[in-house]
C-alpha cells in the first residue's frame, strides 16, 4: 500500500533520513541539478527529470580512497577507509537505476567483486522516483525502459499534486518507511499517479545492432563520425553507464593515500603506455571505442546495449556528437 508524504513535510523527512547517514538527492545549483548530500538550506529539485550528471557517483564516487597510510620512521600505519554508514539514494529515476544495474554487472559479477563498490551498494537504500513528464532529451523507450517503474529500487515514489506517494518494494525499503512512518499519511489518493510517459525515439531501431557492429571495426563510418569530437570527457562523465576509472597515489614522507578516480576513454592519455605507444592515437579511435563499447562490446559480454536513453549526452555535448547520432550513422534506424 502506498503512503503519502505531504509536500510540506518533505524537509522533515530529509532531515530525518540525513540523520541516519548520508542522504543523496537532486540538488539545484544555479543552472545545474546534481545528486548531492542533503544539508540544511540546499535547494532540492524533485521536478527535474535528468540531473546534469548521473547519480552513478553515489555508488562509484568521482574519487574514492582505497587505502590511507601514515608513517613515522620505519613504522607504517594503515588506516581503515571502508565505511559501514547506511546511505540513502533518493529520487533516482528508472533509467538511472537501470544503468546502476549495468554497472553492477561489471563490479559485482566477478570473482572477487569490487569490495568498495559492493559495500556501498549493499549499504544503500534506493528510493526511485517515477517520471511524470519526460525531458525533451529522454529516449528510454528505445531500450524498453518503463519510466514509471524501477524494479531494482527499495522504495518506489510517485510525485502527485499533494506530495510524494511512497511504496516499499524490498525489506530495506520497509525499514526506511517504518522510520518515516510518523511523517506519512495513512490515507493516500492513488488515482492517476502514473501517467503515460511518452519519450521520443528518434526513429531508432537498436535490435540486432550489436551483432551487426562486430564486423564493422574498420567501417568508413568512423572516418566521419569522430570529426566534430572535441576530445573532452563530458559524455563519459555525465553518462550513467560509463564506469572507467584510474588509480593514482598521493604521498609525502609522513603518509599518503591511494585512490581511484573517474577516467575517460575520450582522453588521449587513457591508453598512453609508458614507452610512449598509444593504441588509440587519435580522436577517431577514441570515439569508436566509446560507441563500440556501448553498442557492441558491453552487449557481447552482458547481453544488452549499455545505454538507457537518459539523454544527458544529447544535452551536454558541446558539438552534439551524441549516441543517437552514432546509432543513426551505424544504421540503427527504423526502415520506412
Amino acid at each position, binding site marked *: 500500500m502506498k503512503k503519502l508524504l505531504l509536500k510540506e513535510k518533505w524537509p522533515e523527512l530529509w532531515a530525518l533520513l540525513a540523520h541516519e547517514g548520508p542522504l543523496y538527492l537532486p540538488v539545484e545549483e544555479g543552472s545545474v541539478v546534481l545528486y548531492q548530500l542533503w544539508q540544511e538550506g540546499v535547494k532540492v529539485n524533485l521536478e527535474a527529470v535528468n540531473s546534469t550528471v548521473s547519480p552513478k557517483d553515489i555508488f562509484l564516487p568521482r574519487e574514492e580512497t582505497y587505502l590511507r597510510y*601514515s608513517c613515522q620512521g620505519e613504522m607504517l600505519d594503515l588506516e581503515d577507509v571502508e565505511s559501514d554508514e547506511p546511505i540513502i539514494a533518493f529520487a533516482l529515476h528508472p533509467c538511472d537505476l537501470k544503468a546502476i544495474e549495468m554497472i553492477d554487472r561489471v563490479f559485482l559479477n566477478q570473482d572477487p567483486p569490487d569490495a568498495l563498490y559492493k559495500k556501498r551498494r549493499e549499504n544503500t537504500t534506493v528510493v526511485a522516483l517515477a517520471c511524470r513528464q519526460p525531458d525533451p532529451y529522454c529516449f528510454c523507450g528505445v531500450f524498453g525502459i518503463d519510466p514509471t517503474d524501477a524494479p531494482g529500487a527499495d522504495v518506489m515514489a510517485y510525485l502527485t499534486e499533494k506530495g510524494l506517494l511512497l511504496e516499499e518494494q524490498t525489506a530495506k525499503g520497509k525499514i526506511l518507511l517504518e522510520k518515516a512512518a510518523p511523517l506519512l499519511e495513512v490515507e493516500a489518493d492513488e488515482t492517476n499517479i502514473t501517467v503515460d510517459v511518452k519519450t521520443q525515439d528518434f526513429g531508432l531501431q537498436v535490435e540486432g545492432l550489436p551483432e551487426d557492429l562486430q564486423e564493422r571495426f574498420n567501417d568508413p563510418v568512423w572516418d566521419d563520425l569522430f570529426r566534430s569530437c572535441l576530445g573532452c570527457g563530458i559524455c563519459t562523465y555525465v553518462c550513467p553507464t560509463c564506469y572507467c576509472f584510474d588509480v593514482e597515489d*598521493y604521498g*609525502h614522507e*609522513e*603518509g*599518503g*593515500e591511494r585512490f581511484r578516480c573517474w577516467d575517460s576513454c575520450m582522453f588521449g592519455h587513457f591508453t598512453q603506455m609508458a614507452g610512449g605507444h598509444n593504441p588509440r592515437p587519435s580522436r577517431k579511435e577514441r570515439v569508436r571505442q566509446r560507441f563500440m563499447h556501448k553498442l557492441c562490446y558491453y552487449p557481447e559480454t552482458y547481453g544488452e546495449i549499455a545505454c538507457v536513453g537518459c539523454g544527458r549526452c544529447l544535452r551536454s555535448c558541446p558539438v552534439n556528437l551524441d549516441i543517437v547520432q552514432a546509432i543513426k550513422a551505424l544504421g540503427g534506424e527504423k526502415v520506412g
Partner: protein
Amino acid sequence: MSAALNDPATGWEPLIVAFCCNWCSYAGGDLAGTSRMNYPANVKVIRVPCSGRINPMFILRAFQRGADGVLVAGCHPGDCHYSTGNYHSRRRLSAFKRILEFVGLEPERFEVRWISASEGDKFAEEMEAMTGKIKALGPNRKMRDARWKSKSLSKQLK
C-alpha cells in the same frame, strides 16, 4: 582551525617560500648572511636563474604544500642579468598576483620584490616584514592540499 593554530601555545610558525633570482636577490641574501644580519628562519629560499623563470605553477604548488606566504625576488628593473627577464616577470606576476587575490588569497601572502646583490639589508628587512605580516594573518588554508602533511601542520618549524 586557524584560531587554534594561531595560538602561541601550539607553536605555529609560518612557512614562507622565497624564490630568489641567482644574480641579484640570492646574492643579496648571501650578503645578508655574510654581513651577519638576522632574518627569520621561516623563510625557505629557492634559487632560480631569473625572476622570469617563475612559472605560476611554482607558486601554486608552494601554497598546495603548506606555504603560508610566497615571495618572488628579482633584480631591479633595468638590472636583469638577461636584460629583460624581470620586465617580463613584472607583467606576468602582476597579473598573477591579481588573479590570486581575485580567488580569495590575502594580498600579503604573495609578494614580489626587487632586491639587488648589494642590498643585504633590504633582503633581511623584506624577509622580516613578510614574516611579520604572515604571522599576523595566521596559517594559510587557501589552496592548500588537505592531504599534505596535515598531522604536522601544527608542528611546522617548531
